């Protein structure tokens, strides 16, 4: 025993050190994880995360909010980020479908009351598109009577229900039968192709706790700027050209954001302009007035790391192809909306092209959409007729305000309409194009890759089938009433 005592001590110390190292990974939140602790965190992950969550894999606590908690806690984490979007989408398969006792026999075969029933994380080997980890023919488990109810579906492959451009599991807002019939007659291009205009001024003016006393809505002159010694002639000149200066938003509004925790903040945003000067304000300064846009930004792949307190996303960390000269740029509001110009036209095209370097982005310059954008920018076409990256990927949508009204919002969650891409039809495509054409175009992945140069080579039969069924019902009705009267 004495001979080997030293070995025991060394082994004990090494084990304790290893345990402490791994234990620290479990206790330290993702935001505070130093670089040398990261391998320990990844050690505990049973597999790589899906594409949607890969960016925040160090923030285990984002989903595993408490240790030893059950599936219900995991479910709450899913709903915390994705619940609002599903509700808005009029989820075709909400949780209530699976908790209803009358569906008990189907639930016994497939209980999809919880997200993780179909979207298991950390299992890259079984993960399909949209993070689905079930075999793709799962629809048939409940919908076994399809051939009887819809003879038109006879012969269709089991795994194609959700990938044929006809049905989505959750969001069918652009695909439901009556919608197809309603827009069956739309041509490829609508008579008045124009995007919904932005209306930020109206939305801002309606914010109840806007700091109107300190920043009344009026145009500011060079002499009014309150940046003091911090302002440079360049920054002042840039600021004067912006809507900020035209609307009474002075330097202090962003550079002296309200100090967190102050009692005054709770009453209103009155404390904006009182805090200490910050040279580079983060997204919280913007969020004071642009709360909805910031929320969208933080929800998706540009800002989800910031939302978890992690270091901001950089092109070098991305899995999509990015420009090599953009590798270490960090993503924030200002990276697209360069301060102090806040040029939204630049943010809509050049900002994207500054980092993204994939075939779709590279093809944009040769696309008909870009030609329209150039025309609009040069004044040769009306506002809203040009198509920028943002027109489709950050569309202008109708959103609810906290005061219970509605406003037009630029959707800063650029992942919101990406997958399945039929989600893009209503907010973007249908502003200018007919429904059938939009469905076909989005189903042609080669066309999407070359940024819509040319016509769709694919035809989705959903609208034809809807019309055939409606005509069949009409025929039967007419025959029945003829039979009655004849």
């Amino acid at each position: 025993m004495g001979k080997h005592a030293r070995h025991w001590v060394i082994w004990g110390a090494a084990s304790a050190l290893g345990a402490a190292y791994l234990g620290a990974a479990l206790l330290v939140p993702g935001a505070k994880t130093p670089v040398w602790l990261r391998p320990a965190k990844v050690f505990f992950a049973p597999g790589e995360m899906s594409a949607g969550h890969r960016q925040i894999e160090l923030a285990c606590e984002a989903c595993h909010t408490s240790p030893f908690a059950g599936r219900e806690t995991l479910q709450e984490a899913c709903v915390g980020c994705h619940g609002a979007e599903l509700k808005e989408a009029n989820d075709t398969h909400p949780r209530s479908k699976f908790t209803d006792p009358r569906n008990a026999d189907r639930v016994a075969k497939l209980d999809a009351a919880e997200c993780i029933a179909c979207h298991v994380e950390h299992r890259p080997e079984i993960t399909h598109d949209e993070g689905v980890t079930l075999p793709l023919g799962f629809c048939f488990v409940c919908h076994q009577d399809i051939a009887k109810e819809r003879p038109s579906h006879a012969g269709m492959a089991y795994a194609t229900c959700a990938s044929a451009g006809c049905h989505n599991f959750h969001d069918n807002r652009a695909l439901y039968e009556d919608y197809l019939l309603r827009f069956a007659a739309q041509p490829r291009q609508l008579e008045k192709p124009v995007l919904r205009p932005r209306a930020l001024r109206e939305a801002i003016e309606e914010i109840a706790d806007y700091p109107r006393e300190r920043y009344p809505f009026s145009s500011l002159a060079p002499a009014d700027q309150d940046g003091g010694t911090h302002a440079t002639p360049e920054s002042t000149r840039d600021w004067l050209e912006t809507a900020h200066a035209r609307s009474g938003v002075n330097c202090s509004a962003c550079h002296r954001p309200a100090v967190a925790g102050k009692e005054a903040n709770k009453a209103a945003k009155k404390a904006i302009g009182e805090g200490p000067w910050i040279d580079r304000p983060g997204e919280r300064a913007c969020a004071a007035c642009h709360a909805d846009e910031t929320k969208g930004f933080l929800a998706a792949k540009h800002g989800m790391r910031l939302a978890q307190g992690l270091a901001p996303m950089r092109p070098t960390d991305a899995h999509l192809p990015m420009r090599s000269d953009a590798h270490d740029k960090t993503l924030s509001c200002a990276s697209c909306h360069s301060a102090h110009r806040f040029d939204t036209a630049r943010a809509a095209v050049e900002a994207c092209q500054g980092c993204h370097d994939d075939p779709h982005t590279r093809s944009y310059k040769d696309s008909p959409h870009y030609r329209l954008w150039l025309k609009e920018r040069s004044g040769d076409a009306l506002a809203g007729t040009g198509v920028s990256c943002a027109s489709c990927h950050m569309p202008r949508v109708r959103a609810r305000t906290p005061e219970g009204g509605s406003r037009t919002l630029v959707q800063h969650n650029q992942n919101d309409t990406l997958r399945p891409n039929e989600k893009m039809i209503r907010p973007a495509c249908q502003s200018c194009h007919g429904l059938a054409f939009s469905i076909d175009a989005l189903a042609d992945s080669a066309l999407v890759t070359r940024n819509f140069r040319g016509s769709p080579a694919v035809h989705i039969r959903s609208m034809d089938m809807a019309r055939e069924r409606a005509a069949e019902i009409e025929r039967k009705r007419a025959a029945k009433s003829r039979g009655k009267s004849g």
Partner: protein
Amino acid sequence: MRTGKWKVVLAGAAFATAAPAALGQVSHKEMADALHAVMESDRTVYTRTVVNRLQNEEKVIKASEHFKDEKALPLPAQMFRFGAEMVAEKKPGFSYSLLSLWPINKQNAPKTAAEKTGLQAVVDKPTEAFYQEEMLGGKKYFTAVYADRAVSPACINCHNNHKDTPKTDFKLGSTMGGVVIRVPMK
């Protein structure tokens, strides 16, 4: 001795029967009936004072299944279903739905034996509720089915002319389907 023992047994049985009511406890049947009274009244108010009045009398707005897209009123059946879904989120134990032997949406056709029997029973005898115990997913439920009648012209006008209706000759006051309430039994 024997009579004495039987007296005790009888007294005990009488107590067990009367005790729930006497002690203020509600039976499954009473709970289902009470829930139905509220559901039926709320939906009738909506159908008559909102849908029928504004759509058919004043003609200022339509009711439609796709009420958001068409800026229309939700259908009474949807108002009912949204309530049921919101109730389910609160996890109160009981559940309810609107079913029919002639559903527009096939998912609302009767599935379990109790539903099938019950829906037919309320068609045959609309003024009587139908009660049955059911085993679903390994749990026991007290299931009650109540006749759902066409309380307003709005009901039959829409259902008789709908693209997907299996029945086109509903009359005012006829039973169109049934409200099914399930209360879990311990």
